[in-house]
């Protein structure tokens, strides 16, 4: 018997639509993410699209250190994204707050607030690194659907 959820995730892996959220980044990571859409890297050949509305998205892509104001918005957006969904943290700030680790405005890293599926380090990460990270995420989810234990 084939698991109902694993079929859904298999189709999702072939057309992940990405919603891009900046929780107070310096815009370097955001520019590198937009580079992935350019002719040199062209992630549309994997079916990925950048969508404007969170309701259309499958992947929540987070950059930035996550300050007190934007954390509220992040929680609200995570409630609004239709499940099943995946969360990707891009850049040093999203992983561990980077140089803002002692700031009064960034009390906790992002993965203490919502579950993160894959971390892509770098300041900023190259487009190659972002694509490699997404490939790792896809392989991880494929393995977990084979075991039928979900993310």
């Amino acid at each position, binding site marked *: 018997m084939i698991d109902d959820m694993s*079929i*859904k995730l298999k*189709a*999702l892996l*072939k*057309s992940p639509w990405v919603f891009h959220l900046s929780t107070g980044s310096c815009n370097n990571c955001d520019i590198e993410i937009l580079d992935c859409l350019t*002719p040199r890297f*062209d992630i*549309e*050949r994997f*079916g990925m699209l950048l*969508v*404007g*509305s969170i*309701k*259309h998205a*499958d992947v929540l892509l987070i950059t930035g250190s996550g300050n007190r104001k934007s954390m509220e918005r992040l929680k609200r957006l995570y409630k*609004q994204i*239709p*499940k*099943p969904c995946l969360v990707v943290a891009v850049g040093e700030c999203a992983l561990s707050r980077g140089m803002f680790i002692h700031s009064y405005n960034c009390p906790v890293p992002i993965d203490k607030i919502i579950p993160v599926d894959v971390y892509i380090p770098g300041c900023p990460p190259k487009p190659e690194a972002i694509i490699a990270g997404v490939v790792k995420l896809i392989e991880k989810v494929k393995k977990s659907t084979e075991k039928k234990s979900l993310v």
Partner: protein
Amino acid sequence: MIYIYIFYFLFFGFLLTAIIGLLASWIDRKVTAKVQYRVGPPLLQPLIDIVKLLGKETLIPAGSSKITFLMAPVIGFASVILVSTLLWINNIYPAKSFIGDLIVVLYLLVIPSISIIMGGFASRNPLASLGASREMKLILSYELPFILAILVTVIKSGFTFRLGEILTFQAQNGAFVRSWSGTLALIVAIICMQAKLALVPFDIPEAETEIVGGPLIEYSGSGLAIYKLMKNMLLFTLPFFLIIVFIGGLRFDGIHLLYGGLKYISLVALMTVIRNTNPRVRIDQAVKFFWGPMTIIAIIAIILALLGR
């Protein structure tokens, strides 16, 4: 007898239209990618998108009108299936048409846009309402020249409102596009089709960089899947309608199959090229464009048709 119509409804109206529409959507995305020196998506990408969306959770925004929000995509989808069934039956058996089916088709072709407006207003989102109101203005602007352009074919085929008689008239006397009035009317109809499909330069209702998807912003899961499928099917239905009324329909015997495919693919390629070489216009510019030059060209085409040119 009734089973034949059910067969037409399911096989031609839904299945074949959906397959050709998804293929046309892939051609559109691939050509766009090639224009931008990219590789583009694989062949099954539009189908995978829809299967994925059907498996996702459907969220209903708080405080929205729930029944209207869920019914709107179904109404638009049903009308597209109905109109493509009518067109297929007319194309295959021209004798089976009824009086005034041209008017029925024209009305049914507006309903997808109306369903988008309903969904946009029902979703209780300011951006969706803005997109829906723009869609409404766009309908008001393009319907006048579109109906005038279709009227040219009615005049040229001896004042008949049957699609079947228009087709048989063209089979005997040559396609309308060969005359001056037919060519002018076809140009107007193609530009109106661009606005009906909400493609660039007339993608004002769903300007993604401006109002993030417009009326569809709150739709997720199966609602969005039905809207996507509806738009892909319209990508076949509208060019098919223009082929029937202007270029003599599609035929399936021998070499005519090739000609039919060529007619359809050239119309889709033309739409894609227009889409990729133009910037988006503002809504007031679109209204001025349709009520000014387009209506004047359509009226000139009608006068030429009355003079027998």
